């Protein structure tokens, strides 16, 4: 065992060290925040940090929670696949600080203080009664659960990549498969899932909202520092941004598909790892350059193996890649291995065209679904490119307003101490997002040059890129630190949402509906138990999570915003707003939003909705929520004047 440790390479040691330091900091912060619980009112401190946060903590908790693991896994893979057009796709984030904080912050904070509310359903209960509050609680628990499961899986996959080179981790994961019943399980994934779950459940349970905010501060700093260091290393490696853009302008999209490796002779097993370059040469024709995107294992009993491959189609790119080998071509495949049948498909939009990676609407890969109806639908959409004008408008609305409608963000708006803090936080958040999102676009456009041929496994581009640039800069230990950024993003999202689910059960269901006279001791114990139970349930669900994780995240995030954005605007700004109107806005918007998924399921048997008139389901859901909410409110009786007066004077006097 000692020898194994000594054999750990520098990347493994760096990963382990950075992870250990990071974990130590998180646990230290949790313990420190736990000490704040004593001597303060438990519920207000545990679920809202006693509303005492200043601008830096408030900014970083808002920013870190908004930047989920998707920002460091899904977003880079989209940039890598579609190019510069992702700058336009994410451009709406420039408005997020104003819309997400400025639109609701002042009134929501004031209103929640005036009625002593510490959760979003608390605010709705004070304004409309328990019926609206209960519906809101159910929606939060239901939709956040959909959101948490993919986050657990993504975090575990990131941790797996972070620790993959650590010998002790490899030994541990192998031993998992010796446990009866787990012989065929993915040992590495299970170990990472358990580590992540224990860590995040522990610090969130022990420290509550204050621990979540303080760890968000650490995580927010890790994220922005990671992005800026990666940007500097990347620009240095590609020889400047102008050089990278010129190369991208030359690029034509590759062909994607599969190749059959056949074992013609030889003994023992042969492994061909993912990301292996190989060439196909035909006399009289130019060399064809391909890269594997999955592992191949050929043995006597498995003489054939199908692997995912990417074929580079740009002659200048082929020449540039081949120049790294002494004889101008990739090393030959292992002895006895020959290439059998090939199945390669061109891009659905942009095939054979130069310049698609540097212009709108961006290239579209071939349909990847075995579902014929879905593939036909994807092909029909692809005729317009990745981001036609209508969809660009849709995304410019989606990011600012869906972020404003997230209950997780609204809870944070209830936690700032003065409006001065909110105003400063809007400023800092604008700078924070500008430092994260636009640099990510630059980095992963350059990734097409630094790590070419990964189009079939684009979710791996973040770790692949960090390892490539840090090793090229001769600082391999830095990779371990850089890969901690997406892990931090996953953690900062999960901890907030777990706390919201716990508060929904304990405060909004148990205390308000079953035991209003519950003692602080009971609430405390129940809160701890609830956090642990939520953690266990989500961990079990994440052991075998559903496919298409990104779609679950989009579904849950959009559903929450559709349900809460308009009702909260009505609650905070409209005296005439009443219980039927808000319920109709909440459920009507969600119904229209879900209808898009239902229609998609009926049409193509999958939960991939089609935009209507180039506007996505979130935009239609919000429009429907607004129209239904206003109509139903005006058709029903106004709320009792004394009730409204009791609620609004705090704003108007």
């Amino acid at each position, binding site marked *: 065992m000692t020898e194994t440790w000594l054999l750990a390479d520098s990347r493994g040691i760096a990963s382990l060290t950075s992870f250990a330091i990071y974990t130590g900091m998180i646990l230290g912060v949790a313990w420190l925040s736990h000490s704040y619980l004593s001597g303060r009112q438990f519920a207000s401190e545990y679920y809202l940090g006693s509303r005492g946060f200043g601008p830096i903590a408030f900014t970083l908790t808002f920013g870190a929670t908004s930047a989920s693991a998707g920002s460091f896994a899904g977003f880079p893979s989209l940039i890598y696949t579609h190019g510069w057009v992702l700058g336009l796709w994410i451009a709406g984030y420039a408005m997020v600080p*104003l819309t997400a904080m400025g639109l609701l912050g002042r009134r929501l904070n004031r209103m929640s203080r005036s009625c002593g509310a510490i959760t979003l359903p608390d605010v709705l209960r004070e304004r409309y009664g328990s019926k609206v509050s209960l519906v809101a609680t159910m929606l939060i628990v239901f939709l956040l659960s959909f959101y948490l499961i993919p986050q657990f899986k993504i975090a575990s996959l990131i941790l797996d990549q972070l620790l993959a080179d650590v010998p002790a981790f490899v030994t541990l994961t192998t031993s998992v498969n010796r446990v009866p019943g787990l012989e065929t399980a993915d040992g590495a994934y299970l170990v990472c899932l358990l580590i992540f779950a224990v860590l995040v459940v522990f610090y969130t349970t022990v420290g509550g909202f204050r621990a979540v905010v303080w760890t968000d501060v650490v995580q927010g700093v890790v994220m922005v520092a990671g992005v800026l260091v990666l940007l500097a290393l990347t620009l240095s490696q590609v020889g400047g941004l102008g050089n990278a853009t010129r190369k991208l302008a*030359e690029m034509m999209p590759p062909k994607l598909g599969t190749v059959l490796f056949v074992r013609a002779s030889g003994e023992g097993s042969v492994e061909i790892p993912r990301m292996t370059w190989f060439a196909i040469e035909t006399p009289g024709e130019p060399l064809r350059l391909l890269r594997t995107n999955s592992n191949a294992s050929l043995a006597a009993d498995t003489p054939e193996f199908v692997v995912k491959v990417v074929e580079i189609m740009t002659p200048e790119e082929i020449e540039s890649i081949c120049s790294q080998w002494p004889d101008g071509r990739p090393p030959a495949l292992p002895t006895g291995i020959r290439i059998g049948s090939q199945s390669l498909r061109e891009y659905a939009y942009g095939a054979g065209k130069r310049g698609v990676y540097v212009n709108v609407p961006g290239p579209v890969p071939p349909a990847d679904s075995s579902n014929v109806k879905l593939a036909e639908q994807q092909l029909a959409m692809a005729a317009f490119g990745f981001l036609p004008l209508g969809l660009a408008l849709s995304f410019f609305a989606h990011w600012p307003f869906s972020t404003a409608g997230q209950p997780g963000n609204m809870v944070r708006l209830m936690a700032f101490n003065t409006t001065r803090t909110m105003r400063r936080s809007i400023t800092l958040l604008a700078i924070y997002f500008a430092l994260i999102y*636009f640099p990510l676009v630059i980095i992963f456009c350059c990734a097409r040059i630094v790590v070419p041929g990964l189009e079939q496994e684009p979710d791996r581009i973040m770790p692949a890129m960090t390892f490539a640039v840090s090793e090229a800069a001769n600082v391999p230990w830095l990779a371990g630190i850089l890969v901690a950024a997406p892990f931090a993003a996953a953690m900062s999202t999960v901890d907030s949402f777990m706390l919201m689910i716990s508060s929904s059960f304990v405060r909004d269901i148990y205390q308000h509906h079953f035991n209003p006279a519950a003692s602080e001791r009971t609430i405390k114990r129940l809160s701890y138990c609830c956090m642990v139970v939520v953690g266990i349930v989500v961990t079990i669900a994440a052991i075998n999570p559903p496919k298409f994780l990104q779609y679950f995240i989009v579904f849950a995030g959009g559903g929450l915003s559709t349900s809460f954005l308009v009702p909260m605007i009505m609650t905070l700004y409209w005296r005439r707003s009443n219980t039927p109107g808000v319920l109709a806005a909440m459920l009507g918007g969600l119904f229209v939003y879900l209808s898009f998924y239902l229609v998609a399921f009926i049409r193509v048997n999958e939960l991939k909705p089609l935009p209507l008139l180039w506007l996505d389901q979130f935009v239609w859901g919000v429009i429907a929520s607004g129209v239904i909410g206003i109509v139903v409110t005006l058709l029903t009786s106004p709320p009792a004047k004394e009730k409204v007066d009791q609620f609004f004077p705090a704003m108007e006097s």
Partner: protein
Amino acid sequence: MKPIKDDAVREACWIVVSWCVFAFWVLTACYWLPPTTVESPRMILGMPMWIVLGVALPWSVATAFTIWFSLAMMTDDPEAETKDD
């Protein structure tokens, strides 16, 4: 004292109008500016011209506007008392 609700409504109007202005700027610039090609690589600061004028510049202006708006235009509320839970 000016009513707090009025401040919030005024600020919300500013935010919605600014969103409309930036949406118009971004979408118009990105789809109407000429494309970057190998033959005529229209670039500013090493990036395609449309991304600089249609994304990077409006993003920078939006950030500057956000800072100005939040520090100079938004008002402070008087200290609010918090009711016990």
